[in-house]
């Protein structure tokens, strides 16, 4: 009966109720949409980097991440790979070599990062580079190289051109050789486009005299996502050589993760501010709604309605509006997300943030977690906004209330 009463009361001043519900719904839409947009972007960024340069997890020799020296090697990668598959079945593994040197073409020369990759294992779900021109490395021992797109431009060299590489080999001797450029590579933005020379893994190992050794085992874990701590622990437990370091993608680029978390925090603050404003509106509306009915509530009280029941009635009215606003907001937000679908970020394209290429399109995926948050805030807002007027209404003296007009 109280619910029915509250419901009827809502529509006695239908316009005010509609405005309150609409304000609330707008707040919900704003929160859900912003949350969805942000988290979808983050998902895309994480997807991009974990399928490209970083992987979900990486295994290195002890201390390599901190000081990536040539001699810090995983000496027997095949054994480690077997252990990885035992710990995390179905994981895609890409072994990589990273050294530094000079790359020269004609009279031009500049510093280079020399990367050894296995083209057969850098495909689909896990691939370091996109070939923008030419073709991928065809095999070992063919003296083929891919150049970062910007590096090729800097050296003024195109497909079929010859580059000379010089560096320091594992034994201290001068590594030097020449390679034919078969393709130009986009390593997902960042420095490597301007300094990366990609060789076949075996060629890079021979160039630097590394034997079978590699510097990174890059892992793409099935079902992997933002939080990789559990697989990290599982994997480390399975490795025979405990000195190997296992790092999650966010440990590899801690700045990215902390930027994401800062963004999350600042948007949460924004949400609360938004709802604080809505709460003030609710306070105003509910104060009016109770003041208007001072006499009527006084009559109710005179007829023996308990203060607690009056408090309950007003709060129920508020909650009902909250539920309505939430339902409306959710519907609109869901419709918006579905209608928008993909957001083009072409304006940001080619823009590197922290050396990571921003995705060009973001596919919006409804963030139910955001909705849950919005629901909580919305209902709390309604209650907070109405508790004061409800309290006042419940505490009214019936005699005085019935006398007021």
């Amino acid at each position: 009966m109280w619910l029915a009463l509250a419901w009827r009361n809502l529509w006695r001043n239908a316009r005010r109720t509609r405005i309150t519900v609409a304000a609330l719904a707008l707040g919900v839409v704003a929160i859900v949409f912003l949350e969805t947009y942000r988290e979808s972007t983050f998902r895309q960024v994480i997807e991009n980097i974990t399928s490209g340069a970083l992987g979900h997890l990486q295994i290195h020799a002890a201390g390599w991440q901190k000081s990536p020296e040539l001699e810090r090697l995983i000496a027997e990668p095949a054994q480690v790979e077997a252990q990885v598959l035992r710990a995390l079945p179905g994981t895609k593994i890409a072994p990589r070599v990273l050294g530094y040197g000079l790359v020269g073409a004609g009279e031009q020369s500049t510093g280079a990062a020399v990367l050894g990759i296995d083209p057969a294992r850098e495909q689909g779900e896990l691939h370091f580079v996109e070939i923008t021109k030419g073709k991928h490395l065809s095999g070992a021992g063919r003296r083929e190289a891919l150049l970062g797109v910007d590096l090729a431009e800097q050296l003024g060299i195109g497909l079929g051109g010859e580059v000379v590489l010089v560096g320091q080999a594992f034994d201290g001797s001068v590594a030097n050789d020449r390679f034919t450029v078969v393709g130009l590579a986009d390593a997902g933005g960042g420095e490597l486009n301007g300094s990366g020379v990609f060789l076949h893994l075996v060629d890079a190992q021979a160039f630097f005299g590394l034997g079978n050794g590699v510097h990174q085992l890059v892992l793409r874990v099935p079902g992997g996502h933002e939080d990789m701590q559990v697989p990290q622990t599982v994997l480390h437990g399975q490795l025979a050589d405990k000195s190997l370091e296992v790092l999650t993608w966010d440990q590899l680029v801690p700045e990215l993760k902390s930027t994401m978390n800062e963004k999350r925090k600042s948007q949460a603050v924004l949400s609360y501010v938004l709802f604080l404003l809505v709460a003030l509106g609710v306070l105003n509306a509910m104060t009016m709604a109770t003041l208007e009915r001072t006499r009527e509530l006084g009559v109710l009280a005179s007829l023996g309605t308990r203060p607690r029941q009056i408090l309950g009635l007003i709060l129920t009215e508020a909650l009902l509006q909250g539920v309505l606003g939430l339902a409306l907001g959710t519907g609109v937000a869901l419709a918006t997300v579905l209608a928008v679908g993909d957001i083009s970020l072409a304006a940001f394209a080619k823009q590197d943030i922290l050396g990571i290429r921003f995705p060009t399109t973001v596919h919006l995926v409804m963030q139910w977690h955001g909705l849950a948050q919005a629901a909580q805030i919305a209902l709390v807002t309604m209650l907070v906004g109405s508790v004061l007027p409800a309290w006042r209404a419940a505490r009214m003296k019936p005699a005085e209330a019935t006398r007021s007009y």
Partner: protein
Amino acid sequence: MPKFVAILRLLLVALVLNVPTLGLATEPADLPPCPSQAEQPDVAGLIKRTQRLLEGASSTAVMTMTIRTPSWSRTLKLQTWAKGRELALVRVLEGGPRDTGMMTLKRDKQLWNWLPQAARVMKLPSAMLGDGWMGSDLTNDDLVRGSSLVDDFDAKLSGIVKLSGGDAWQVVLTARPNAPVVWGKLELQIDRALCLPVQERFFDEDGKPLRTLQFSDFRTAGWRHFPAKTTVIPEEKGRETVLQYLELQFDVAIPDDTFSLQRLRQGR
């Protein structure tokens, strides 16, 4: 008669190539004398003499270079040709499988490397001048610059130190403003008997020590004395580069095309 012509031709060739008179055992007249007895020698003259002793108009040498690092050690055998401060060529006679036959040519302020495995010449970008030459503690800059201690630094005698081999003057060299040098300060210990440095310490502009050069195994070639062994000790722990001369000749005739880029490109 043909014999006479042959001798004449030989003499002419010697003149053209500026070959010094054989057996020159006396010092050139314009070289400041070694002020061994002086407590307060003329420092400028002393430095001038020291530098003149160590660099001839031309020289050729065969030496070994031993590089020790925490992760690897290796010894290379090198042959060098130098003419004045502008021209120099270093060839790796014996090294690893990748770098035996490698050559570095210096012409004025520029360096080119012949890379035997690539069979190509690569010019060293100027940004790499500070890097170690062939992984040693000698920088490319050491090869290129040959800075003049006399022209680029102010010298001051700071005292006399007793060393195991005898007394040495301690001289502090401070870089002149705008001098094209990478060092801020040098501390030299110069042996009083030979007027040759036994130790050079290098500092940057902020007075931070960068590396130490130690000279030993002093030998004589004609009128010159020279240290046959140079040890380079950088500040980085566990590293050291030792140069040991096996043969050294000063003021010899070197054909000009030794330093030609054309020739380097052919790997000869």
